[in-house]
């Protein structure tokens, strides 16, 4: 068993508390991604699980054993660092064998495990090279290989892709997903990139200023964000938020247009959220919102239109294909009632 559970985990530096009581259960074999803006405490949380930061309060257990006072090497974890942390004075082989040699593993077994990991990661040709003779992507693999050879119960990744360029990042992302499938190990992965979170995770943990905002599968988070923070953070194009006034029959949009909605919590609705990909172009008469096209970004397969409302807000639309729109023309937008999210004054989603 290698599930990880956190019970009221806190971290403070002196009087300053940065992680405020986190409760989380990670099942054995699960791929969990901690995501959040910088400074939200996601790396600190990971380092506490790794045993690199003392835990100020609460309990961390790995495989059913409380590890608060267990030193890092005995926790059965392996960590991949953002900078890879390869030992520059050792060859790739020595880097991967370092931990096993420290544990006085028989030489034949060290050799067998290093070669096996190298085979999985396709880095066999580089075993005799020094890290400085490798490209960023190759170093990344060596860092992962160093974790694999130790056969840990839990893999911890601290923003492992942030030093790679965009193309390599996408490729390595796929490889990490495959690796998780092959190894069937528990993986905890920290990133600030919501695309990595969406594509890799079995479950995503969204963190904000030291608290968990929401835990769920990527699609749960996409479809039913619990608050404006999660709604705005998840998905590649940020959700549009529009201030609205509730009426008995629906919500009043800024242009004094009524959007008819049936919703139990309608009375406390203050903000309407709608994702750019759910908005549609409409004719003048059927429009819910109208504004001036301020910027259009054409990607070929889709386009992003940034429309400035008379109230000064900007609404983003994601339109399929390559629509023929001209700057400064008036855009009429239809808001499909089934695609909207309603939030109360505190930013909590209304269900």
């Amino acid at each position, binding site marked *: 068993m290698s599930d990880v559970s956190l019970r009221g985990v806190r971290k403070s530096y002196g009087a300053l508390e940065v992680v405020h009581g986190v409760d989380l259960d990670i099942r054995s074999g699960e791929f969990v991604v901690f995501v959040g803006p910088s400074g939200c405490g996601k790396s600190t949380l990971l380092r506490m699980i*790794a*045993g*690199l930061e003392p835990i100020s309060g609460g309990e961390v257990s790995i495989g059913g054993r409380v590890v608060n006072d267990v030193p*890092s*090497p005995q926790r059965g*974890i*392996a*960590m991949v*660092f*953002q*900078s*890879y*942390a*390869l*030992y*520059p*004075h050792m060859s790739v082989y020595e880097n991967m064998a*370092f*931990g096993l040699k*420290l*544990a006085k593993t028989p030489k034949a077994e060290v050799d067998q495990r290093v070669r096996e990991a190298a085979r999985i990661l396709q880095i066999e040709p580089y075993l005799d090279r*020094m*890290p*400085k003779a*490798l*490209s*960023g992507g190759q*170093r990344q693999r060596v860092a992962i290989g*160093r974790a694999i050879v*130790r056969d840990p119960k839990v893999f911890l990744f601290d923003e492992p892709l942030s*030093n790679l360029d965009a193309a390599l990042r996408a490729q390595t992302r796929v490889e990490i997903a495959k690796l998780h499938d092959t190894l069937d190990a528990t993986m905890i992965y920290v990133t600030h990139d919501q695309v990595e979170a969406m594509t890799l995770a079995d479950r995503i943990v969204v963190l904000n200023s030291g608290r968990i905002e929401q835990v769920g599968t990527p699609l749960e988070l996409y479809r039913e964000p619990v608050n404006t923070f999660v709604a705005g953070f998840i998905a590649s194009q940020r959700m549009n938020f529009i201030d609205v006034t509730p009426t008995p029959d629906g919500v009043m949009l800024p242009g004094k247009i009524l959007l008819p909605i049936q919703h139990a919590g309608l009375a406390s609705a203050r903000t309407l959220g709608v994702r750019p990909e759910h908005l549609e172009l409409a004719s003048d008469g059927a429009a819910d919102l109208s504004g001036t096209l301020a910027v259009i970004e054409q990607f070929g397969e889709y386009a992003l239109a940034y429309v400035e409302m008379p109230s000064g807000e900007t609404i983003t639309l994601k339109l399929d294909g390559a629509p023929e729109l001209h700057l400064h023309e008036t855009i009429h937008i239809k808001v499909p009632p089934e695609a909207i999210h309603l939030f109360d004054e505190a930013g909590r989603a209304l269900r």
Partner: protein
Amino acid sequence: MEENRPSRLTAIALTFMAVIWVSPFSWLILNAFNPLSTGQLEIPSVVGFDNFGLAVSGNAGRQFINSMLIAAGTATLSVIVGISAAYPLSRLKIPGRNAFLWTLVLLRMLPAAGVLVPLYFTAQRTGLLNQLGVIIALTILNLPFTLLLLKNFFDTVPIELEEAAYVEGASLLQIVTRIVLPMSRAGIAVVWFFSFTGAWNEFLLPLIFARVQDAFPMSVGLYAAFGQQGAINYGFLTAFSIIYAAPAVGVYFLLRRNMNTGFAGVGVKG
């Protein structure tokens, strides 16, 4: 006249400067290889190594070994003590550690002669008026710079490397000996060579601490060799000087090689 050619006046001036610079060295070399040296600047009629033979045998040879002992001992002790103190200074958040370091450096700026009397009495009381005393005293005087240099080198070793090693099960001692020290090779070499040259050149402390001829290093021996047996033996003196200067030159080349190769492996990002 071509534009880039120096004028005749410049040429004469440069030649004059060159002669001024080169003549002491040529005097040194010509006399050293002249067994019949008289201390004049002249082309020797016979060329031989007799002077060098004299300069490495007997008392002179003994002094060479003393110098080596003092210099290598000081350098090694400085490195060991320096590492043990600089590593914690680099890694632990000790309040006022930088102020502490720079205060030490300030103290080192004071002339060594200023602390000579207390040093002497301390050594006398502790029975260290010998070569070991010289080594310890020089190490103490070296320590501020040693600390500062080594701390800066340790600072460049990314903490993530140590964390990675720790997660993999390395003890603190293993982290230091297998990660930090190999990565700071260049820094350690620089400190060792500087301490070596410093101790090799040191004159005052050995003169006062080692009061018998057998314990003199070359720096003191050279001084004492003036006027020995009533006359100055210039051939012996020049050969002795060349041997005395050789390690400094050697260290210079070793140092250059280390400075060039030592830094290459430090970066991890890429």
